[in-house]
C-alpha cells in the first residue's frame, strides 16, 4: 500500500515540454544559438546568470568586482559539486576559458565572449582574477554567456562526448539522460544541486517544430507546456479553462534598416517611373523620419500580431539597461510624413521594394505587407518581396536591398551592445557595426558608444548609452517597429515564469499555488 502514493508522486514530478526548434548539440560551447543556450542552462551554469528580466545575478560566482580598469576579481561559490560528485573550483573556470575558443568545427563559437580575457590567475580554489588588454566593462555580461564545464570530465572530450552524455557533466539543476537530435532531450533531476530542490524529477523536451503539431500535443496532453504559441491559436487557448497562457515582452525588436551605403539610389529605390534617383533619399534624416511616421505600429500590434507585440521606440523595451525613457514610438501621422517628404524634396514620393524574410520572425511577411499598404497613404509606392531566411540574410548582408525588415534579439540585455552591432559605423575588424546593414554612420553616436565601452562607472556608462540611443533614435538611424511578445501555454495547474530572453527553462515551470 505504501508504494502507491510514492509512485503517484513520482509520476507527478515528470513533465514534457514542446520546443519549437532543434537542439543542435549538447556541447555548451559548440553552437551559440538561442535554443541550445536555453537547453544548456539546465545542465550547466555560468559564473553570472541572468534572471527572467535578464538582470545579472550571482550563479557560480558569488561576487565580482573590477580591481582596476584591466583587472577583475571573481569570488566563486563554495561547496558546489558537479554531477559526477567532483567539486567545482577555479581550475574548472580556467579549463572552460581554454576550451571555448578551441571547439573543432564550431559553426558559431562563444570565443567572442572570452577573447577580451588575456590572462587568468587562480588566487585560491575559490578566487580567480581575469586580466584584459583594454578596459572591458562588459566582462561580467560576456561571462554570463559562458557555461562552466568540468575539467575532469571535459579534458579529453570532444563535442561527440557531450552529445553522448559522457562529458555532459555540469553543476546545473538537471543531469543529462538522453539526447536524440531533432527529436528529444531527456533530463533527470540533480538531487545534490546547490540551489535547492527543483520542481521536477524528469523532464522530456520534445522537438515540435510545426506550430499546429505543438498545439495539438498540448491539447491532447502529450506535453504539459509549449513555447511560442502560434498567434492564431492564442485566442482559443486563452478561453480554454484547461490551459494557462503566459506572455512577456521579449528582447527581440523587429526593425527596418534603410540602405544608406550608396550616393545615388540604393537597390530597389527609384522615382515613380522607375528611374534611379539623383540622391540616396535614405541619407536624409527627414525621409527616414517620414518613413517611420508612415507606419501604424498600433495596427500591426493589434491586428497582425494579435496584441502579442509592443510598439517600439528603440532597440529594447525601456526597462532594460541603457534604454531611454524619453523615447516614445513614432506616432502614425501620414499627413506629417507627406510634409516631411515634400520638405526633403520628394513632394511626389518615390518607389521602393520592401524586402523581408518569410520564415524567421513571427508574421514577418505580413508585417512587410502591412507597411507597404501604410506607405500608399504617404505617397510612397511600395512593392513587397519576401523570401526564406536561407536566401534573405545572405543577400541582405551583401546590401542587395534598399528597405530591409529585420529582427534583433539582445541576449546581453543591455542596449549598448545592440547599438554597437546595428548602428555604429561599419568596421568589422573593430567589432563595430558588424550587423549594420543600413550603413548608417554618425560620428557623434560612435563617440558616445566608444566612451561607454571603457567607462567603468556603471551610472556614467548607462547615461552614455542612453544618450547614444537618443542620438540614434532621434535621427531615425533605423526604424523600430515592435518588440515581439513571447508566449507559453501550460496545462492548468502549472505556471511558467515568462522570460524576456525567450528561453524555456524547466526550473521556471512550477505547480500553481
Amino acid at each position, binding site marked *: 500500500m505504501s508504494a502507491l502514493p510514492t509512485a503517484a508522486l513520482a509520476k507527478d514530478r515528470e513533465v514534457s515540454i514542446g520546443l519549437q526548434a532543434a537542439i543542435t548539440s549538447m556541447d555548451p560551447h*559548440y553552437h551559440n*544559438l538561442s535554443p541550445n543556450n536555453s537547453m544548456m542552462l539546465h545542465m550547466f551554469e555560468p559564473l553570472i546568470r541572468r534572471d527572467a528580466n535578464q538582470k545579472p545575478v550571482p550563479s557560480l560566482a558569488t561576487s565580482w568586482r573590477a580591481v582596476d580598469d584591466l583587472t577583475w576579481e571573481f569570488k566563486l561559490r563554495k561547496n558546489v559539486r558537479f554531477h559526477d560528485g567532483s567539486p567545482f573550483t577555479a581550475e574548472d573556470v580556467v579549463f572552460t576559458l581554454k576550451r571555448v575558443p578551441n571547439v573543432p568545427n564550431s559553426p558559431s563559437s562563444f570565443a567572442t565572449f572570452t577573447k577580451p580575457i588575456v590572462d587568468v590567475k587562480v588566487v585560491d580554489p575559490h578566487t580567480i582574477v581575469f586580466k584584459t588588454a583594454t578596459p572591458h566593462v562588459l566582462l561580467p555580461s560576456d561571462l554570463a554567456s559562458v557555461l562552466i564545464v568540468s575539467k575532469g570530465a571535459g579534458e579529453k572530450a570532444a563535442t561527440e562526448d557531450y552529445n553522448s552524455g559522457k562529458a555532459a557533466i555540469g553543476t546545473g539543476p538537471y543531469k543529462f539522460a538522453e539526447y536524440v537530435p531533432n527529436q528529444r532531450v531527456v533530463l533527470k533531476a540533480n538531487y545534490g544541486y546547490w540551489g535547492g530542490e527543483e520542481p521536477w524529477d524528469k523532464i522530456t523536451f520534445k522537438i515540435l517544430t510545426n506550430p499546429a503539431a505543438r498545439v495539438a500535443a498540448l491539447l491532447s496532453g502529450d506535453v504539459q507546456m509549449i513555447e511560442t504559441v502560434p498567434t492564431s491559436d492564442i485566442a482559443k487557448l486563452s478561453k480554454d479553462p484547461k490551459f494557462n497562457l503566459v506572455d512577456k515582452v521579449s528582447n527581440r525588436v523587429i526593425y527596418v534598416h534603410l540602405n544608406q551605403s550608396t550616393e545615388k539610389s540604393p537597390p530597389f529605390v527609384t522615382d515613380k517611373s522607375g528611374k534611379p534617383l539623383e540622391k540616396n533619399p535614405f541619407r536624409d534624416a527627414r525621409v527616414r523620419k517620414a518613413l517611420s511616421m508612415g507606419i501604424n505600429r498600433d495596427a500591426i500590434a493589434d491586428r497582425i500580431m494579435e496584441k502579442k507585440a509592443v510598439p517600439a521606440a528603440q532597440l529594447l523595451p525601456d526597462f532594460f539597461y541603457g534604454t531611454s525613457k524619453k523615447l516614445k514610438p513614432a506616432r502614425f501621422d501620414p499627413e506629417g510624413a507627406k510634409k516631411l517628404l515634400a520638405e526633403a524634396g520628394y513632394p511626389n514620393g518615390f518607389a521602393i521594394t520592401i524586402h523581408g524574410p518569410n520564415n524567421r520572425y513571427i508574421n514577418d511577411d505580413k508585417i512587410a505587407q502591412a507597411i507597404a499598404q501604410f506607405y500608399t497613404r504617404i505617397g510612397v509606392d511600395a512593392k513587397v518581396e519576401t523570401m526564406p531566411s536561407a536566401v534573405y*540574410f545572405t543577400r541582405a548582408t551583401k546590401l542587395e536591398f534598399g528597405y530591409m525588415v529585420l529582427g534583433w534579439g539582445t541576449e546581453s540585455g543591455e542596449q549598448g551592445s545592440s547599438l554597437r552591432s546595428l548602428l555604429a559605423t561599419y568596421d568589422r575588424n573593430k567589432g563595430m557595426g558588424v550587423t549594420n546593414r543600413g550603413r548608417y554612420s554618425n560620428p557623434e553616436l560612435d563617440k558616445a558608444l566608444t566612451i561607454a565601452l571603457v567607462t567603468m562607472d556603471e551610472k556614467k556608462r548607462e547615461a552614455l548609452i542612453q544618450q547614444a540611443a537618443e542620438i540614434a533614435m532621434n535621427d531615425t538611424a533605423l526604424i523600430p517597429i515592435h518588440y515581439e511578445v513571447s508566449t507559453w501555454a501550460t496545462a492548468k495547474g502549472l505556471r511558467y515564469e515568462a522570460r524576456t530572453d525567450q528561453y524555456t527553462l524547466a526550473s521556471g515551470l512550477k505547480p500553481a499555488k
Partner: protein
Amino acid sequence: MLAYTIRRFGQSFIVLVFMSFLVFVGVYAIGNPVELLVNPQADEAERIRATAALGLDKPFLEQYWGFLKGAAKGDLGKSFVFNVPALTLILEKLPATIELAFVAMVIAISLGIPLGLVAGLKPDSFIGRGIMAGSIMGFSLPTFWVGLVLIMIFSVHLGWLPSNGRGETVLVAGIPVSFLTMDGIAHLAMPATNLALFKLSLLIRLTRAGTREAVLQDYVKFARAKGLPQRRVIGVHVLKNILIPIVTVIGLELGSVIAFAIVTESIFAWPGTGKLLIDSINQLDRPVIVAYLLVIVSLFVVINFVVDVLYSLLDPRVRLGGAAAAH
C-alpha cells in the same frame, strides 16, 4: 541478367555524381551558410574562423573535389549544424521513414486493390459508387488538413492515440522498428493512415479502371464460359493481367512516399528524414542535403530494379534488358 544489372548500376552511378554536382551548385547559389550559423553579434575574426571550420573558405571546385574524394571513401562530410557525419544522421532517421512508408503502402495496397476490384466489378452499385466517392475525397483533401483532423479527433477529443512522435522500438536484425510493440502501433496508426490516404485513392482508381477494361476482354468471357469459379476468374485472369501498371505505380509511389513524407512527418513530429531534409535546407546544411539526395536516388534505383524484376515474374513475355536487346 548480370550484364543488365551492371549496366543499370553503372548508369545510376553517373546519375549520382551528376546530381551531387547540381546540389553543390544549387546550395552555393542560394546563400552562405555562415550567415545563418554564426551569431549575428560575432565579429569578423569569428566569421573567418567559422568559414574556415566549415571548409567554405576554399574555392567552389576545390570544395566539390574534396567532397568527391571523401565520397569515394564513403564519407559524405559532416553536418555543419550537428557536427556528426551526414550519412550517420540520415541512416539514424531512415528506418523511421521507411517504416512509415511501408506501413502506409501496406495499408494502401491491402485496401486499395480489393476496393478497386469491387468498384470495377460493380461500377453502378451503391458500394461501387461509394468507394469512388471516397477515393475522390482521398485525392482532394490536403494531407496536412487530414492529419490535423485526425489529431483533433483521436488525440484531443477521444484521447485514444498519441499526437506525436514514434513509439517504443525493438531491434530486428539491428534495425529499430516500432510496429511490433503496442506503443509503437499506437504512434504509427495516425501518421501511416494519413500518408496512405492519397496512395489508397490512387490504387482504387487504377485497379477499378483496369478491372473494368479486363472484364470485357474475350479471355475473361471465355474463362467464365468454361465455368471457372468467380474467384479464379478474378484472382487469376483479371487481377494478374491488370497488375503490371499497378506494380509500376506502387514502385514509383513507394519511392516518393519515402522521399516526400515531409508534411506528415512534421505534423506528427515523426522523427524521419523528411523533417531532417527541410530543416537542413532551411539552414543550408549542405552535407546533409547532398547525402540525403544521394541516399534517396539510390533508393529509387533499387526500387525500380525490383519493379523490373517483378514485371518479368508477372508477365513471362517481359525479359530483362540484355535479352531484349539481343533480339
